[in-house]
Every structure is written in structure tokens, then in C-alpha cells.
């Protein structure tokens, strides 16, 4: 598979208040390859460096040592910054702080307008992007009248209209209610499947990560676990050590197994869990 974002032995630290206060490394030697068209979730407790990892992809943060390559372009080279931002779009945690315009469709148009695209083409892209996230009917609405989930979908449409190859989402659901969370996650999943957009999603919800193709667990700035959701979530002991939990369904199966019941423990969601319990019950 083609590599789209590469981290090569990356380290990064935030600047301290003055030179006497050197902060510890937030990212401490990360080497990762993200494949084109994949859906990758990054998990980790607060301060594990997961948000920083996201911000390294489009030159908001530059590595202290090592390299971050986006489609072969080095983020440290200033000449590449603009090009990289045309390839990697970013959605942030707080939907209020990334919407620029007072009307939904104007906001979605903001990115393409910055790229200097023809007005007619912008209109086409804006309509297409709003339809793709299911917000077309709200194109003339004022953002402050939308729910959190809707605002976040508008923010995603804003990136879609720029037609980037990848979207990096930095805890896009952290400030949303369960309904908003579901809306955003299903939108992102659909865009990944239907349009082949590479997704890197930072989250602290296990249930969300369970729907990704690949889960990376960060701890203290290092890659702690990396694999399919099934591989990662069956290692509940390891997850607990870095302050994370397994999805509820996995936890239940595990607890049943621990209490001596013969049951499959590599379940990820409720359906699989129900199946496993039924199978165990029949036996």
C-alpha cells in the first residue's frame, strides 16, 4: 500500500516559559507509516501526545528531530507548508473556534476561496461537500443555530471542499453529546469508505476507535500498541497500564471469561458480544 503520511523517528517538545524550564519530550521517537485510504484511530490518555501527533501532520508543529513526510513532502521545509495543507485537512475539537463565516455555505467556501479556485467550481464543491455530510438543507443557516454535531459536520465539509487527500481529526467528538458523536463518526466513516479519504482520528472513546481499521495507542510520547482494533483491545492488561479501558462489550466478554465461562473474548461491539454470549450459552 502507498504511504501517505510518514513519521520517521520524530521527537517534539513544547517550548517552556524560559530557557531554564525545558519541558520533557511530548513525542519521544515515533516511527509510523499511514497507508493511503486507511482509517487510523489514535488513543491515549491526556498528555500522551496524541493531539501533538495530529498537529505534526500539517506543519502546525515541526519535529525537533526526525521527519514527518506528507506524500513525500517534508513538513520542516517552509516552502512545503502550503502544499501540505492542501493535502491534509484538519478538524479541531471545538467546533465554535473553527467556523469563520456567519452562514454555513460561506464557511464551507472559505477553504476553496483561499486556494483561489474559480467561483463556479467553489459553488459546485460547496454543494457537493454539504451533501456529503448531510448538511445541504442547512446551507443558509447561521452556525450558532446548529447543534455541536452539525457544526462539526460543517467543519468537515469545509475540509472536504478543499479536496484534501487526508483528514486529520483532533478529538472531533470530545465536546459533543452522544447523538452528535454518532453523527460525526458515521460521516467520517462514510467519507473514508466512499471517497477513499485517508483518516487519522484522535479520540479517547474506545467505541469510536473500535470502528477504525487500525488503532495506535500512544503512551508517554511513544507508540505503545499498534494493530487492528481486535489485536489492540484484546490486550486489556496492557491498555489498563497506560490508563485506558477496553470497549464495554470487550470488557464484559473478558469479565465473563475471567469468571470461568468459556467465551470468545475478541469481541469489539455489542452484536459480537451478544453472539459470543449466545454461543457460550448454547455450549
Amino acid at each position, binding site marked *: 500500500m502507498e504511504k501517505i503520511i510518514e513519521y520517521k523517528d520524530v521527537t517534539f517538545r513544547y517550548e517552556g516559559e524560559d530557557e531554564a524550564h525545558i519541558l520533557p519530550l511530548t513525542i519521544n521517537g515515533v516511527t509510523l507509516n499511514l497507508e493511503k485510504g486507511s482509517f487510523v484511530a489514535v488513543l491515549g490518555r491526556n498528555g500522551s501526545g496524541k493531539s501533538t501527533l495530529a498537529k505534526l501532520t500539517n506543519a502546525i508543529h515541526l519535529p525537533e528531530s526526525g521527519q514527518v513526510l506528507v506524500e513525500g513532502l517534508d513538513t520542516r521545509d517552509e516552502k512545503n507548508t502550503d502544499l501540505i495543507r492542501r493535502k491534509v485537512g484538519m478538524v479541531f475539537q471545538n467546533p465554535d473556534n473553527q467556523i469563520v*463565516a456567519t452562514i454555513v*455555505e460561506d464557511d464551507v467556501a472559505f477553504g476553496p476561496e483561499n486556494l483561489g479556485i474559480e467561483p463556479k467550481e467553489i459553488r459546485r464543491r460547496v454543494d457537493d461537500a454539504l451533501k456529503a455530510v448531510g448538511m445541504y438543507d442547512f446551507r443558509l443557516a*447561521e452556525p450558532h443555530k446548529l447543534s455541536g454535531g452539525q457544526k462539526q459536520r460543517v467543519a468537515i465539509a469545509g475540509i472536504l471542499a*478543499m479536496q484534501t487527500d487526508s483528514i486529520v481529526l483532533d478529538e472531533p467528538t470530545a465536546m459533543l453529546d452522544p447523538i452528535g458523536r454518532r453523527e460525526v463518526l458515521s460521516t467520517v466513516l462514510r467519507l473514508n469508505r466512499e471517497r477513499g479519504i485517508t483518516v487519522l482520528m484522535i479520540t479517547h472513546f474506545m467505541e469510536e476507535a473500535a470502528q477504525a481499521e487500525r488503532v495506535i495507542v500512544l503512551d508517554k510520547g511513544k507508540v505503545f500498541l499498534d494493530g487492528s482494533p481486535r489485536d489492540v483491545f484484546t490486550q486489556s492488561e496492557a491498555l489498563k497500564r497506560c490508563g485506558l479501558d477496553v470497549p464495554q462489550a470487550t470488557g464484559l466478554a473478558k469479565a465473563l471469561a475471567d469468571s470461568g465461562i468459556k467465551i470468545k473474548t475478541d469481541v469489539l461491539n455489542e452484536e459480537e458480544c451478544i453472539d459470543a454470549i449466545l454461543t457460550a450459552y448454547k455450549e
Partner: protein
Amino acid sequence: MVRDLTIGQYYPGDSLLHKTDPRVKIVLTLVFIFVIFFCKNFFSLGLMIAALLVGVFLSRVPLKMILKSMKAITFIIIITALLNLFYTTGGNVLVKYKFITITDTGVYTAIFVAVRILALIVGSTLLTYTTTPTMLTDAIEQLLKPLKVFHVPVHTLAMMMTLALRFIPTLIEEIDKIMNAQKARGADLESGGLLQRAKALVPILIPLFVSSFRRAYELAFAMECRCYTGGEGRTRMKQMKLKGLDSILIVGCAVLLGGVIALNLFFKTYNLG
């Protein structure tokens, strides 16, 4: 509370005035204000009022909304009218009581000034009722473009206006949250004298200030990530083009201006001030 808030006082509609190019509307409103001041007698003012009524009719904004916009300035109108009533000299004396003298010219001037102010207010609210804030800022940016020659950062100013408009509801929501948070901690915001109440605002303003900076910081990142580098090389999705309708309005206003001048000259003897 915030969900019902509409920024500016846009009245959504699909009327002729709504469809008019916002640049034309801004310029014509300015011309209208200028011409209103140019009216010297009741005949020319009457012509402008008639034109204004046609405008109100064309905008399809309900009269109730128009009256609402007048209500806010009733006090100013009354004060100005009274001042004109008492301080205008000349003409036949109608009332003379101690130091108060009222002349017929005074009465005419008072009515004239009041009608003039009303016309000004209605004229300019017609602009804000039929134009969204976004369209207004865009039009101002376009109109001020020539100032770029003098290194006036026109695009930056327009961007600042847009962002300010965008964040008004967000910040209102924030103030509400902070106030509730401080009330929950026992802050007393409603009692005491003026000074005490002003002091009680400090614990609200400081968190608001801090969070505004945090928002600004995040917003700047988000804008940069969407390739924003200022006005250079930017295109706009919504292009403003002058249409036939706009030309008709411009011509109409030119005719009005001619009419006002003619009436001013023709009824010279009735001119006030």
C-alpha cells in the same frame, strides 16, 4: 436564548430590494442621506418621503418592523424638535410667555427636522433589513477596494468585521455561562449601587477576556490550516454583479435628486433654514 438571536437586523425575504446588489444599496443609502439633508422645503422633503414609502413597499418588510426601528429614537426626535421649536427666531410670534417665544417658523422647522430624522432612520434601516451582515461586509470590502492604493488593509478590515459578527453569538453564550458559573459561586450581580455592580462585572469580564484570546488562537490555527494567507490570491464564491435592476434603481435615484433640486429652487420662498 442564543439560538433565537439573529445578528444585525436582517429580515429574510426575496423582494426586489433584497435582490439588489448590496454595493448599490450602500451607495444609494448614502446618497439618500445626503439628499435628505439637501431638501430645503416641505415639497422636496415630501418627494423623498414618497420615494422612501415606495422603498418600504418594495422591500416587503412589514410596517410593524419599520415602526419598531423608529421607536428607539423617539426620544432624540422629541428633544431635537423641542430645541428647534424654542430656539428658532423669525416669522410671526404665536406664543409669548415670559422667556418662551414660539414662532410659526419654529413650528415648521421643528416638524421639518423631526420628519427628516425619521426619514434618515427608516432609510438606513431599510438597508440593514434587506441585507445580511455578510453581504454588507463583502460590499464594504468591494467599495473600499480603491483605498488599497493608499495601503489601507481593506481585506483585513473586512475579515475582522466578519469574524466579529461571527463571534457575537458565541461570546454572548459564553457570558451567560460565566455569569451562571459565578452566580453558582455566590457572586451577587444584581444588587448594590452602580459602582458595586460595575465591580461585580470584573469576575465576568476577566474569564471572558482570557477565553476570547484562547478562541482567537485556535481560530487562527484553524484558518491557517485552511490555507488562509490574507487577501492575496483569494477568490470569492459569491460574485457581485450589477444587474438591470440595479441600474434602474440608480437611475431612479438620480431622477429623485434632480426632482429635489428643482423643487428646492421652484418653491424657494418656502425654504426653511
